């Protein structure tokens, strides 16, 4: 590897501690995908519009393509790989996407799940209009959003009922 401006980074991803060296110009998304091999986070536009790379940084959703990996130093990152409780189960939101046909090609899905993870935590009882607004920073080219919105509403209700 050619020398660049290398930095030590120490962070947790889905609760797992990583200590790595990364070049400063690497985005957090590229770092997750190609250094940590957590390829669930996708890069769709690399200019901060499509939302496919959305991950949580210290609990808040951010664009993985507009955040440098070095900026995640000493922070916690949550990605789609961390959502399911076990290898063979899905969490409430993921399950709602499965049941409501909330995805087709699945490329935008990880970003949408992360956006909604934060959104439903902050807004447990949203209206459909609020859900659509919350999704405005995530582009899906396949579904027409109908199943996604239905899944978000379904998940919100189930989360409320389960007291989670």
């Amino acid at each position, binding site marked *: 590897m050619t020398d*660049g*401006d290398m*930095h030590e980074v120490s962070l947790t991803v889905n609760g797992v501690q990583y200590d790595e060296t990364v*070049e*400063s*110009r690497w*985005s957090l998304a*590229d770092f997750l995908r190609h250094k940590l091999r957590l390829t669930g986070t996708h890069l769709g536009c*690399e*200019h*901060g519009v499509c*939302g496919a790379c*959305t991950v949580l940084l210290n609990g*808040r*959703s*951010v*664009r993985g*393509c*507009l*955040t*440098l990996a*070095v*900026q995640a*130093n000493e922070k916690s990152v949550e990605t789609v790989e961390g959502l399911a409780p076990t290898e063979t189960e899905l969490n409430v939101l993921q399950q709602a996407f499965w049941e409501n046909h909330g995805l087709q090609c699945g490329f935008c899905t990880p970003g949408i799940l992360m*956006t909604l993870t*934060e*959104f439903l935590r902050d807004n447990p009882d949203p209206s459909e209009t609020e859900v659509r*607004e*919350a999704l*405005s*920073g*995530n582009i899906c080219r396949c579904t027409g959003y109908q199943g996604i919105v239905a899944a978000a509403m379904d998940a919100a209700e189930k989360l409320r009922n389960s007291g989670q």
Partner: protein
Amino acid sequence: MKPAPFQYHRVSSLPEATTLMASLDNVRILAGGQSLMPMMNMRYVMVDHLIDLNDATDLAGIRVDGHSITIGAMTRQRDILESFDVAQRAPVIVEALRQVGHIQTRNRGTIGGSLSHLDPAAELPGLMTLHDAMVTFSKEGDQRTVAMDEFAMGYMTPCTEPDEILTEISFNSWPVGHGFDFREFAQRHGDFAIVGVGTLLTLNSDNRIDRIAAVLIGIDYKPVRIKEIEEALTGQIASEELFREAGESVRKLNMMEDALIPESYRKQLASVLLRRSLISASKRATRG
């Protein structure tokens, strides 16, 4: 679409940042990164040094002192949007911030970053212009303050000196009961507006306009305060007819034209949005 190489510097305080600024060439400040990073990814911007202010906690936060509100440059849009103080004293900012980008960009984007990027259609420079805010810059051993009126030097070019850092912005809140409105036209939520309008006004007991401020964004290289129209409206009795005339008169301004949007459409939007905004603000104002 990967950025060109640069040297990354993380600083934890303003003094550290200004010292570093003084010693480096071809340097850019990294605030929220929501505008700078796309430009770097596309290699429209190539820098030798990037100074990251995200750990400079002394630059973040909202202070209230009497009527004065001071917002640190590194305060996130999300935190301004959720600030009780801001909602109480400058509700127009909350109304506008809901229309800025998306959850993910507001979580990172900062007020200082937005002002420094100075997109002609950005809401925050418009809101600060609306509030006659003062911007503070620091460099090693020095500090200065300029009015928002003098902030923009040209298209996407603030008056920041090469070794200066924008540190905070402050403004006086309007009296309790003032009317306010912010609206913009974009085809999709969160896009940069084609045109946006912010208005503040106070009404006396017989529905006359005591004080008024109105700003337009997206029509010129910087936010435009329509002082002549503000003056013409001051002292008048608020009415839909009055605001319609105000809307019509804004068409006289020269406005931008670009490859996608003709000037005539900007004039139309400015006129309609100003009228609607004034009507809404006057309805929200407490008389007397």
